[in-house]
């Protein structure tokens, strides 16, 4: 009888440990999701004003046609 009780308490202990570690892992994943945001920011950082057919550029095209 006492042996059975000891087995039960051990199972309870193991179950508690398992549940708490799973909860911990979920918390880590949840906290990692916002950390992925800087990747999107890096994409924006790479955005530049870029090419525009300004008067300067059109003048160059004109001279290149000579």
């Amino acid at each position: 009888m006492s042996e059975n009780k000891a087995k039960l308490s051990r199972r309870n202990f193991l179950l508690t440990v398992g549940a708490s570690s799973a909860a911990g892992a979920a918390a880590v994943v949840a906290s990692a999701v916002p950390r992925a945001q800087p990747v999107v920011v890096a994409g924006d950082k790479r955005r530049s004003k870029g090419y525009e057919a300004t008067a300067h550029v059109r003048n160059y095209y004109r001279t290149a046609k000579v």
Partner: protein
Amino acid sequence: MARMKFLCDAERCIECNGCVTACKQENEVPWGVNRRRVVTLNDGVPGEKSISVACMHCSDAPCMAVCPVDCFYRTEEGVVLHDKDVCIGCGYCFYACPFGAPQFPQAGAFGMRGKMDKCTFCAGGPEADNSKEEFAKYGSNRLSQGKLPACVEMCSTKALLGGDGDVVADIFRDRALKRGKGAEVWGWSTAYGKPDKQQAPKGAKS
């Protein structure tokens, strides 16, 4: 959306290296790095041709494909740029590029490669437009200033064309139609003699 392209007209290039100098000056390119070079084919032989070569900003860039850290990216105008903060200097892009565009600084100690450097089509890099950091790492960002690359604007004979690919193609097509090719080119007989009398008689002194 315009697509940025370079095109060198070999019939017009006079191997003056003005484009090379303009690039060096504009971007303060470090010693040992040449973002642009002039390559001469059949040097010294009548009819030699020179072509100005730099990064061609390929549509399907091999450097992009082989980079193990994925430091390359393409802008909306099709300019292939890279992030020096991500580059590990492995040199794979150097071996993959058919134009020899990726360059590595030569001034480092013990043969250390350092970060890769290449032509940016004068479009800077991932830093803020025309910031100090951008200039230090990638050179001038003329595109965002409404200008074209310094090499292109410097070319005295307009051999090196650059800018919107459609416009550049139209300019080159017009030239090719007007002048023809080979011996049909204007000034060919003055420069090289008539096509059938190109070779000087034996024993003639130049």
